[in-house]
């Protein structure tokens, strides 16, 4: 089954295209890493799929239907820095926000929602902190709360924007365990990811992006020098060369 299908997805900011013609089909049950250099449009891609950023062309289908018809099956985890962590809400409040999507506009938060939120917090090991104000958490804990909120959404398809940014090693491995568990349960997860090294072990599929779709496929097939160079515009080798030269001539430092 196809969980996500985009056709010719194009996004422009101030009349400048930042993403063009993205065609991709993601099988349900995939754990996908979205990889590319800074400014490649990785966040923009998932935001435009979610309808948070409007697209100027193309279309998106989720489980065979337009996004609007299947909104409740899609979960979104924005970048941690995108929100104000001084906001006067507790860990529990944030986890509860995950249930808002299914509650609709006028539903009330009740026992059922609290149960769902508690379970989700428990899963990421944040239940003991549920009464804490979110500002009094470490970066890793904040990211876990965001994940708990996503779990509380109970969606089939998830988009996560840099969930590993600025978290400690323990949280990183806890998150990846959780993502793999979600995949086992048949969920489809797309993750914007920065680190090329870890991408190989974390994800079963990679989406290589640099304003256009460079390639999409199984991780092993994507990990070729040619494709990665195409994605990073040859910058990888340049960096390698610079690093190599610097290593060979330690005096070079002084010249700079």
């Amino acid at each position, binding site marked *: 089954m196809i969980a996500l299908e985009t056709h010719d997805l194009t996004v422009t900011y101030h009349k400048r295209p930042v993403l063009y013609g993205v065609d991709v089909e993601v099988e349900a049950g995939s754990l996908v890493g979205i990889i590319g250099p800074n400014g490649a449009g990785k966040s923009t891609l998932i935001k435009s799929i979610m309808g948070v950023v409007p697209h100027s062309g193309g279309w998106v289908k989720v489980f065979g239907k337009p996004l609007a018809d299947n909104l409740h099956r899609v979960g979104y985890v*924005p970048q941690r820095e*995108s*929100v104000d962590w001084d*906001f*006067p809400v507790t860990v529990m409040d*944030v986890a509860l926000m995950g249930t808002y999507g299914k509650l609709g506009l006028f539903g009330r938060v009740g026992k059922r929602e609290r149960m769902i939120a508690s379970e989700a917090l428990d899963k990421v090991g944040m239940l003991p902190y549920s009464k804490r104000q979110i500002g009094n958490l470490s970066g890793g804990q904040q990211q876990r709360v965001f994940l708990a909120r996503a779990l509380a959404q109970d969606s089939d398809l998830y988009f996560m924007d840099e969930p590993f940014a600025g978290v400690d090693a323990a949280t990183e491995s806890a998150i990846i365990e959780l993502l793999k568990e979600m995949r086992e349960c048949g969920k489809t997860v797309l993750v914007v990811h920065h680190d090329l090294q870890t991408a190989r072990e974390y994800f079963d599929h990679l989406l290589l992006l640099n304003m256009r779709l460079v390639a999409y496929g199984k991780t092993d097939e994507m990990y070729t020098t040619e494709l990665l160079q195409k994605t990073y515009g040859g910058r990888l080798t340049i960096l390698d060369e610079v690093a190599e030269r610097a290593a060979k001539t330690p005096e070079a430092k002084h010249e700079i």
Partner: protein
Amino acid sequence: MMELDQDSWWMVGMSFLVALPCALLGVFLILRRMSLVGDAISHSALPGIVVAFAFVGDLSSPWLLVGAALAGLLVTFLIEQIHRHTRIKQDSAIGIAFTSLFALGLILIRVIIGDKVHLHQDMVLEGNLQHVAYAETVGVMGLDVPDSLIPAAVVAAGTVILMIIFYRVLTLSSFDSGLAASFGYKPAVVHYGMMAVISVVVVSAFEAVGAILVIALLILPGATAYLCTHRLKLLLVLSVLHALVSSVMGMYFSVWLNGKESAGVVVAGTGLFVLAWMFGPADGVVIKAVQRRNRKLDEV
């Protein structure tokens, strides 16, 4: 102990009725970092009122509220347009948009209303609670209530009801507009909806406290409560409490010093803010000093 006469208590009531919706909305203005937009709306309401007055010719007509609400929406729209389509940032855009509309309002007062009607510029700026004392009364539940309290009560009740209904939407879209948008809550609708309600509230507060002091009613309660708690629901309750206490204290102030009532309310509110700044249980100066000391002792 100084005694307040009945008229003064009606003024306290009026002051609280306009301060209550301001306090609730102000909490969300602060959380959305849009406090200055409240400033903009309160000033740009003026041309809306004047133009509406030109059509209906009656200063107590509810159409003035509609005109002011439209002007409030216009100024928020202008701010959005300026900062989205030019390199001008939002703070400058606010400075341009509301002063222009306010100036336009001042000119329109002369052109449209002239000297026919009692709409003084200083009244527009600082309001006057004493209207309550001279107002006609209507019987409500056996009490002779000054009639100007009725629309204020309706606006206050309406705001409270809207707040209860849309509490979740407002909270989520203020905290995480991305997730809110992914749930299908349209950020633009939430934004302009809130601005429309603020416009109505600000205008209903106009006669009582004027365009400048209403900004204090919007910001002070929420800011004070913010220093006292980190829980949103409690924060809203505390901001309402602030509105109530500063209305009562302000009236005592103004009777004691024989000063202007609306200014007394704001000065009292500022006093409460300073208290919270010093002794606020969440972020006060004292509690922070104690926490620092404890931390140092722990380290030793």
